């Protein structure tokens, strides 16, 4: 994945902006319901008790499938939707609180937002699009013409559009419109930047480019941003923190690597990347030395911080790239390896996927280096590194 090739400087900055920074955004117990539609009888809760804190300087991602409530949450923060309940605070300023009866309008919140469609005003040129937020300020706060021009020029330089200031906004390419939308959101120097799937309208190549551009800008300018996406690769590549959402609630919050490697539920494991799920029961073990799990296909070892008494039913989640695969029978050093037959393989360019039947039709997917390619029908052994197995309670 591209992230690994990212310069370390960025990674270090990421570490700097950690949890000890004061929370820039606090969302508490947010609930937003919509009136019943023809298909549903009751009010539909799009967001159902969502709480999270975003430390200053972080790129905080709300990740989830469509309909999980991530965009509604963002629009509640922006002031474009009125929540039923909860509290939204940005750097000690209460934007919304059902308890205190506070609800600032979107135009009073002073946040920056980049829309999915960019929402570039087609009747204004680049300069006037960016100048708009400054021009609509109250008379006494509004900067004079010269200062507006200066600030617009400055922010256009940051997004590298300064040479196009006089261009009609509709003449810009997709990537340029994206940067223009970003400039417009940043020109007010907002405490918080809201990004609603900003990359989803770009083609694959440009999307990858803009991903790094956006990350670079956010890190160098030290902006606090809430980023909404359904694209797990994007989320993993860009975020300091990810909140995975499902059906209007937050399922798991964590650093990208933790969420990927230590999913706490089957949903998270399944949504972020692909995974092999194996049902089993705890046979032995303690949090300190790991557990032994019996499954229908053989035994496995896995770590978990939780105390799981013997007999607990669990689900093991194992990423395909962590599944070892070789021809022939198990080697002596492999404690928990299963025998099977290759059912199918697919060449994906960067890797080769093998589907291995480990008995009674149960299939394990193994993602291997392209140098390894085993034809279907071959007897093979699959093995699972203990550290790569995530233990998920069976009911999660």
């Amino acid at each position, binding site marked *: 994945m591209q992230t690994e090739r990212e310069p370390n400087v960025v990674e270090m900055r990421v570490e700097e902006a950690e949890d000890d920074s004061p929370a820039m955004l606090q969302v508490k117990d947010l*609930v937003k319901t919509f009136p019943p539609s023809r298909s549903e009888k009751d009010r539909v809760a799009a967001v159902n008790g969502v709480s999270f804190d975003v430390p200053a300087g972080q790129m905080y991602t709300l990740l989830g499938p469509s309909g999980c409530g991530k965009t509604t949450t963002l629009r509640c923060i*922006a*002031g*474009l*939707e*009125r929540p*039923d*309940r*909860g509290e939204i605070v940005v750097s000690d300023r209460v934007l919304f609180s*059902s*308890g205190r*009866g*506070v*609800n*600032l*309008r*979107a*135009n*009073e*919140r*002073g*946040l*920056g*937002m980049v*829309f*999915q*469609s960019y*929402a570039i*005003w*087609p*009747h204004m040129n680049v300069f006037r699009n960016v100048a*708009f*937020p400054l021009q*609509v*300020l109250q008379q006494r706060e509004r900067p004079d013409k010269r200062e507006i021009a200066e600030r617009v020029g400055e922010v256009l330089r940051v997004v590298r559009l300064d040479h196009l200031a006089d261009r*009609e906004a*509709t*003449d810009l390419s997709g990537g340029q419109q994206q940067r223009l*939308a970003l400039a*417009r*959101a940043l020109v*007010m120097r907002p405490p918080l930047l*809201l990004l609603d799937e900003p990359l989803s309208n770009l083609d694959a190549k440009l999307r990858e480019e803009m991903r790094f551009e956006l990350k670079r800008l956010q890190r160098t300018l030290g902006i606090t941003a809430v980023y909404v996406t359904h694209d797990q690769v994007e989320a993993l590549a860009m975020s300091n923190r990810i909140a995975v959402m499902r059906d209007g609630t937050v399922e798991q919050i964590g650093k990208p690597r933790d969420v990927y490697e230590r999913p706490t539920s089957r949903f998270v494991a399944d949504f972020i990347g692909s995974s092999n799920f194996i049902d089993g029961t705890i046979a032995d073990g303690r949090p300190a030395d790991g557990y032994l799990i019996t499954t229908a296909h053989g035994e496995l070892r896995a770590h978990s911080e939780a105390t799981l008494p013997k007999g607990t039913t669990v689900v093991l989640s194992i990423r395909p790239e962590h599944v070892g695969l070789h021809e022939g029978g198990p080697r002596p050093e492999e404690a928990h390896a299963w025998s099977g037959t290759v059912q199918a393989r697919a060449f994906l360019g960067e890797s080769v996927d093998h589907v291995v039947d480990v008995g009674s039709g149960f299939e394990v997917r193994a993602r291997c280096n392209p140098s390894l390619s085993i034809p279907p029908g071959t007897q093979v052994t699959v093995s699972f590194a203990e550290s790569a197995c995530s233990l998920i309670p069976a009911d999660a």
Partner: protein
Amino acid sequence: MTTATAEGRPSFFARFVPRNLFRAQTLIILVVVVTIAYLAIVPLGYLLWGTFFDEQGFTLRFFEEAYARFPLTELLANSFTFAIGSTTISVVIGTTLAYLHARTDVPFKRLIFAASLVPLIIPGILHTVAWILLLSPEIGVLNAWLEPFFRGPAFNIYSLPGMIWVEGLHLSPLVFLLMFAAFRSMDPSLEESALMSGARMRTVVRRITLPLVVPALSAAVLVMMVRVLEAFEVAQILGSQARRWVFVSRIYESLDTFPAKYGEAGAYAMSLLLLTSIGVFVQSRLSRRGKAFQTVTGKGFRPRPLPLGRWRWPASGLVLVYFLIAVVMPVLILIYSSLLPFYSGPSAEQFSRFTLDNYVATFTRPHSLNALRNSLVLGIGTATALMFFMAIASWLVVRTKLPGRWLVDNLAFSPLAIPGLILGVALLFVYLRFPLPIYGSLWILFIAYCTRYMPYGMRYSSSSMYQISGELEESAQTSGASWWQTFRRVNLPLLMPGLIAGWIYIVLVSFRELSSSILLYSPGNEVLSILIWERWENGQFTQLAALGMVMVACLVLLVVIASRLGARIGVKEH
């Protein structure tokens, strides 16, 4: 700032006032909604009350009186013969032209389009008078020419067939426009696949093309039926002479006597209103169901024109004959009359008498100058007020989640079902007793025009509102712009092309409005179309024609400006 109660449930106030309605904008929106409701509801309310109640309370007396003098069956028979006949003519002509233009390689396509503008620029009264000059048994030019063959007038325009012919011809361009859109938006691959299945062209038209445009066709039929039932000029000018009464001419006659029989007019009006409402209602249901028809996708296809082969020349002959009949003959006879000192059929002698006196009179007499000024003031005033109000109303309907916004939408569209003459009657009921001097001033015409053309204003602005992504507005809000700043700096400029198109259309239709004005004008407050009407009643054909040509010139100018502006103003696209 709105409030939410401590339990977290939005309070009553918060639930019925959307998130961003505060102070100034609440006021603006309230004014718009109240105005729409007032314009749509009050006249009908008074009409109902005035028709069903007299000094003693509820009564059906007016209905009894009205239908004792004119049996309902006769009125219904006449009205429906008129409606069905004219609809048939207009639908047959309009659909044929639309098919030829949209789907075949027929020549003279520009002529067809030019003809489609005729009802827009030649008001019904001029069109009717032109046909009188052509086909009247006494002075009809065509009758005079055909006399040697028939030993007497060949045609009598003052008859039910005459009415059907003139009205049907006048409405055919409207059918053309409706059907042209339907043929254009039809996926050509549906026909092509039938051709590939081995069907012959004739079979394809019969079994594929026509069934696919049935929704559009039935909508066109209903629209035309309602239009004919409402049509005032033909029904009154031709029908009253022929003693072929229909609802509108009866309404007018009841009010044109002394003392005016308001209750009787109301009774006829209620009956007609019932019919037109049914038509409009069925049509709106049909069009809603028609959306399930996947054929008309709104996607812009450029279907390969069908080669007509050996039918190409007969078809082009048809187009030429149509253009001759629908455009050239009426316009020529009007120009001819306008140049004469007194009317007489064309002859070499007459051509030598040509004079511009009638035009000079039109531009020098204070009476006609005043009418021209009134028409302009009313047209521009109505269009400006309506488009501004409807821009806000359409924002309300399209963008907010305000409960009851569908009601605003329906109210704004409801005048579609109200014939102009009935609106005139209803406004008389309201303002004859009104304390302010609305009746007897231009204001009553302004109110009438605003009510009549509210649906057009709403249609133009809401269809452009639908084309603007909501995010454009939301991004202005998150940029810190207030409601009014957002509306003025983002919505209005983006809506502008649609608003200007609507504005010009409303100026056009107000300029030629007759059926409401005829009941509401007062001496000194005449508009151009009323002046033409008066000239007609006095038998001043030549002055009428000159006045009419001035009016047509104004309308042509507006149409040209509209198309120029439409091309230039708008979202800059390159």
